[in-house]
Every structure is written in C-alpha cells, then in structure tokens.
C-alpha cells in the first residue's frame, strides 16, 4: 500500500520504562494519519502454564506468585480461588476478610508505586521520581510512606511483601496475632490521609483531552467494591460466573507479542482495571473515597485514560479505608485454613489484581496433580485496548515534535499500568510517521 511520497514518521520506544516488564511501542504515521500502532511484548516467555502441569494443586499459589513481583497476592488469591472451586470448597467470612486485608495491602503498595514512581513523573515532565523529588521531595516521601504501609500490611498478614509465604489453598498457614493487626491501624490512618492528599495532588495535573470508547469488564461482589472475589460483569450488561467468563474469553497469538491477546468471543476488545472497576462499582466505594472522587471531578464514569491516575488515587483511599476497617474488626480465623481435599475436576478463580481482572483455571486429578492450567492476566486482556488508546492519543497529538510525541505515547501505555512480566515479559515503544 502506498501513502503518498513522503517517508513515514515513525515514533518508537524500544525499552519502555516505568512499567513492569519488557516491551516496546511503535506508532507509524503517513500523511498526517496514524496508520499502525503496536504494543510489542518481548518479555521472554516463562511457560507457567506448562511448568504447572504435574505439580501438586497446593503448589499453585506459591508458583504463580512468581509470575509477578508487584502483584503476587493477586496470583495467590486467583490460584486459591480456582483450586477451591475445583475441590468444591468455600472459605468462611473470617478467612475471606483476612484475604481481603492482605489484598488491600497489595493494592496500596502497587497503586502507590504506580502513582508516585511510575506515572506522576510523566505529568510533571520528570524522567523519574528521583528528579521529581528534587522538585517536590515531600510528594515523593508521601508516596513512599503510603507504599511502605501497603508493604507493612502484606508483611503482617502474608509474612513478606514480595511473594508472601502465609497463603495456602483453603486460607492461611497461621492467623496473624491480633496485636500485630492492631499495630496496622495507626499507619493505615496516616496512609488514608496521605491517600486523600494524593487525590488532591493528582487531580490538579494537566490531562490531555482524550476520551476512550471502552467496553469495561470488572468483577462485581454485591454491595462491596470487588477485590478478592466476584462475578465478571461488563458495561454492556454481562453478568456471569468466573467459569462462564473464562469460556467467553478468546485468546489469540500474534507474531509481535509473547503475550496472548484476549477478546470477548464475537466482540470487541475490552478493558479491565481501575477505570472499569470505577465505572461498574463506584457506588460501592467507601464514603471518603466516594467524596474524594466527587471533589476530584470524576463523574460516574471516567473515559479519559490519562485520568486513570485520579481513579487509582481514589482506589488508594478506598483500599486504606477498607484495610483500616478490616484491621479494626479483626478476629483471628480459627482454624486459619479449611482442609481442602483434592477432587478431580476443573476450577476457575477470578480476582481483581491492582491493574485488572486476573483469572486462573486448572484441571486437577483425584490425587491433586495439575493436569492443565490457564492463566489470563489483566495486561493480556487490556493489550488490544491499550493499542486502540495509543492510536487515538497519537492521532490527537501529531503536532508534537518526535520527542514529545514519543513521551506522550509512553504515557498513554503507562495509563494502564501494564504488567508485562505477567503478560509475558518486556515492552518497547517506536513512533513512525510522514
């Protein structure tokens, strides 16, 4: 195909930074029109779905945690949920509440990391948080304080922040003693206040005027803001069980990516993550988080992907408040775990990782050996939408010079907090134009 006599303008970033994992981005422009965009994922595949085959079903939470050092709890929770589903077990509310507390710790840690260290520097023209700290050390210190609190929750409940050791199929190895959970209350109050200041801070940033046309998918869990369980729902009225949802999701392999691209069968790409959760579940936010959203000027739905940083900050307030409430009402589950006996069958588990819906499916045999595994991380589900965003954002910003346009494109990818190690492993960005 020819596109006039001018050479194309190509914007490329080969080692996309401030994302988790390795990938690149490429945008190609001919005669003032973006004709091709690609989010390329080069992260070397690690073959988790293959290496799980032959392992014992109780090993899945610890093994799959190693898919992602930033959201190991998400992997542990989805793996536990899938195995419990396969074995016909439902944990009681006390165990579930402790899981939710641990998961809130991960949301706090991951959202603080993304807002302060990965995303905010873009809005303020800084290469990184170190440069940002030279300008506003107080802001970065506030972010690190929130992040530390998230890690503290994970250490208290899970034993350590990266790859917690206390999680097992059926519950926990040991319930944390009440004094250690009570000790979380003060730091969580400070983190909640810092999170409120975060909403105010990020809502004052300048946002490019972009509106995405998204099909949102998130879990719904009655009147609670879904985190550790729920039914997949969409902005178009889908409401299904995790197993039914898994049947609807079609994954495709494309040459440019070691991550599989997910679509809903017979439908367009979809988006999971903070924007989707907010659109579907905003009514279930805690009072302070809901008020913060109103003050930040978020309507009932936010379709500007750059403003995802505001939504993430609102979720940060929510996660702090929720963790606070769970810590205040904590009583140790006794026993800390149900006994789960292997039963031959297939199980599905879906939870909300900080960056979006994560589901696992396993088939196990009667001896508890894993026969087959399927893991669909949020970034695989979001990848096509991230590319659609990139096209929209680049088309609206062609007046920028190459350096500025490249940065804007990178920022557009970072809007969705991609976790490329999850999806496979490295992201690169290139812009091409004429």
């Amino acid at each position: 195909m020819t596109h006039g006599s001018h050479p194309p303008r190509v914007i490329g970033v080969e080692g996309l930074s401030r994302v988790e994992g390795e990938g690149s981005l490429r945008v190609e422009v001919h005669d003032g029109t973006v004709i091709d965009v690609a989010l390329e994922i080069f992260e070397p595949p690690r073959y988790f779905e293959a290496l799980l085959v032959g392992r014992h079903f109780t090993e899945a939470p610890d093994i799959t945690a190693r898919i992602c050092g930033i959201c190991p709890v998400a992997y542990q929770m989805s793996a536990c949920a899938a195995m419990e589903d396969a074995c016909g077990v439902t944990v009681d509310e006390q165990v579930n509440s402790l899981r939710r507390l641990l998961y809130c710790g991960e949301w706090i840690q991951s959202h603080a990391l993304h807002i302060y260290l990965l995303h905010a520097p873009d809005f303020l023209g800084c290469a990184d948080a170190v440069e940002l700290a030279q300008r506003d050390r107080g802001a970065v210190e506030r972010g690190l304080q929130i992040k530390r609190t998230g890690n503290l929750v994970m250490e208290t409940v899970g034993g350590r922040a990266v790859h917690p050791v206390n999680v097992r199929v059926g519950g926990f190895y040991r319930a944390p003693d009440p004094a250690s959970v009570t000790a979380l209350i003060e730091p969580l109050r400070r983190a909640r206040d810092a999170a409120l200041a975060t909403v105010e801070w990020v809502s004052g940033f300048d946002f490019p005027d972009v509106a995405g046309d998204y099909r949102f998918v998130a879990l719904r869990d009655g009147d609670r803001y879904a985190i550790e369980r729920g039914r997949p729902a969409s902005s178009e009225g889908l409401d299904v069980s995790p197993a039914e949802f898994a049947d609807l999701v079609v994954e495709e392999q494309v040459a440019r990516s070691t991550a599989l691209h997910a679509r809903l069968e017979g439908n367009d790409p979809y988006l999971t993550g903070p924007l989707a959760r907010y659109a579907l579940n905003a009514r279930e936010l805690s009072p302070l988080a809901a008020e913060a959203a109103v003050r930040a000027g978020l309507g009932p739905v936010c379709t500007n992907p750059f403003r995802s940083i505001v939504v993430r900050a609102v979720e940060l307030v929510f996660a702090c408040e929720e963790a606070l409430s769970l810590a205040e009402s904590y009583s140790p589950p006794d026993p800390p775990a149900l006994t789960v006996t292997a039963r031959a069958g297939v199980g599905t588990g879906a939870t909300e990782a900080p960056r979006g819906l994560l589901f696992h499916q396993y088939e196990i045999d009667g001896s508890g050996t894993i026969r087959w595994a399927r893991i669909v991380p949020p970034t695989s589900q979001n990848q096509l939408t991230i590319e659609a965003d990139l096209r929209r954002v680049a088309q609206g910003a062609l007046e920028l010079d190459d350096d500025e346009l490249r940065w804007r494109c990178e920022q557009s990818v970072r809007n969705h907090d991609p976790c490329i190690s999850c999806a496979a492993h490295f992201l690169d960005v290139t812009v091409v134009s004429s």
Partner: protein
Amino acid sequence: MTEPIASAPRDGESSSTPDLDPRPTLAVWKFASCDGCQLSLLDCEDELLSLADAVHIAHFTEMSRATVTGPYDVSLVEGSITTPADARRIRQIRESSRRLVTIGACATAGGIQGLRNFAASGLYARTVYAHPEYISSLDTSTPIAEHVNVDFELHGCPIDRNQLLEVITATLAGRRPVIAGHSVCQECKGRGTVCLLVSEGTACLGPVTRTGCGALCPAVGRGCFGCFGPAETTNTPSLAAQLRRQGMAPVEVSRLFRTFNAAAPAFLDESVAQGGSIPVARGVAVQLDGPEEHS
C-alpha cells in the same frame, strides 16, 4: 521506506547522554524474571532517596525513562537467560560493568522457569502457544554465571532488601558483602521456632536452605520451601532420607527440591537422586534457530 528515526536506546547499547556526574553509577538490568527483586530496591522506602543522592542511578528501566551510557560502576542483574538475544545482551552488559552482581533465584539459579530444563525440547512452547514458531526462546533457563563472570551472587526468591543494601554499599566501597551463608534451620534455632520437621513431621528444606528470609515459613507453621537456594554447606542426601522415612514418595521429595532454585547444583543433584528427570542440557545454553534481535 520505513525507518526508525526516533528510537530510544535499547538495553545494553551505548547511546544517549554521557555521564558527567561524579557519583558512582548504578545500573539495573532485567532478564526472564518477575521484577520482584528489582522491586526490592524500590521497596527500600526509607533509603531510596538517600541512595539516589549517593549514587547515580544510570539505568533502571522500571524506575526511569532516562538512561546514560556505560561503563557502569555496578550492575545489578535480575533474571535468567532464556533467549538467544538475551545470551548476547548479558555479554554486552558485562563488558560495560566494572562490577556485576546477580540478584535473585532467576539470575543465580535459573528460577522457576528453569523447570523447562527438565522437559522435552519445545514442549513448553507448544503447550502455551498456538504458534510456537513466533517465539524465540531457548530450551533452557540458565543462571547469569553460566554466561559471564559474576562478581557476587545475592540469593533469594525474592532477595531481602536489607541484604541488597549491604551488597550495594559493600560493592561501592570495594569490600566483599557480608551475607550469611548458614541454613534456615540455624536461624529457626536462633528465633526459638519449634522444629516442624522433628515435632510434626512437616516436610522442610530448612536444614539445607540458605538463610536470608528470616526463617519466615517455619514461624507461620509451614515447612521451608527453599526460596534462597542451597546453604553454603548442605547434606541433602541426609535430609532426603529423613523425608523418605517420614513417608514422602521419591517423586514428592524430588519435586520439593525443584522449585525456584532447581538448577542450583545441590538441589539439582538431590532431585535427580530421588528419581527426577535429568536436565536436557545441563549447563549448556542451547542456541536454537530463530529470529535474531527483535528490534
């Protein structure tokens, strides 16, 4: 035709800004891994900004879009070698680094993805991908030290952030890091944790696993599962015999040694002794046909 005119530098290549900063330079590199070990650096919330004052963080993709050319005083390397491109990239990084420190189980022992070393050639790619021909991946996942000279190896899945700070401080000061090499078992004794192996018959790798985690698992009532790899001195046959006496089948014992540090020699040998399959290409990074660099 189409030519990239505005590409940022790729890892390990020299370009971008020359470094005029007098501070020592620190670079962080990623190979096949989960990012958890480099996250441990960002998890040093109390020390991160002081560290960034004392050293020039010259290349750290997860943290910054700015990068300066090498050589670097210290390179921290996370992840294992699993592709032909990465086998080349690590050599470039070694050439541009005065000191190279590997961090974590992937970099020091091949990581959980090292389980592919025990599978038939190409099986894993065929299991996960409909088009394995699109994937440029080796049949093996190998530690960095099998490819280049490594100045210090920091173990753990994940590494401990305090140990990481000690390694950075010591390496910059030109001394050997002080990192304990004794077992989790000894650490439990120090903490006063009741021995699960003896009192409850729980399978525990504590007697042969390197400390560093703080003996976390026995403290929550579960057996150690070997995140930090083999201790400096181990007697794995003795532990394996004990586990067998307690009723574990050989296949279960073998599996216990084969998780995040399956390629570490002491664990590898014991897993094979218990009847586990022999690695397809032990210690050899097989070069498969496939695309060269992806860029």
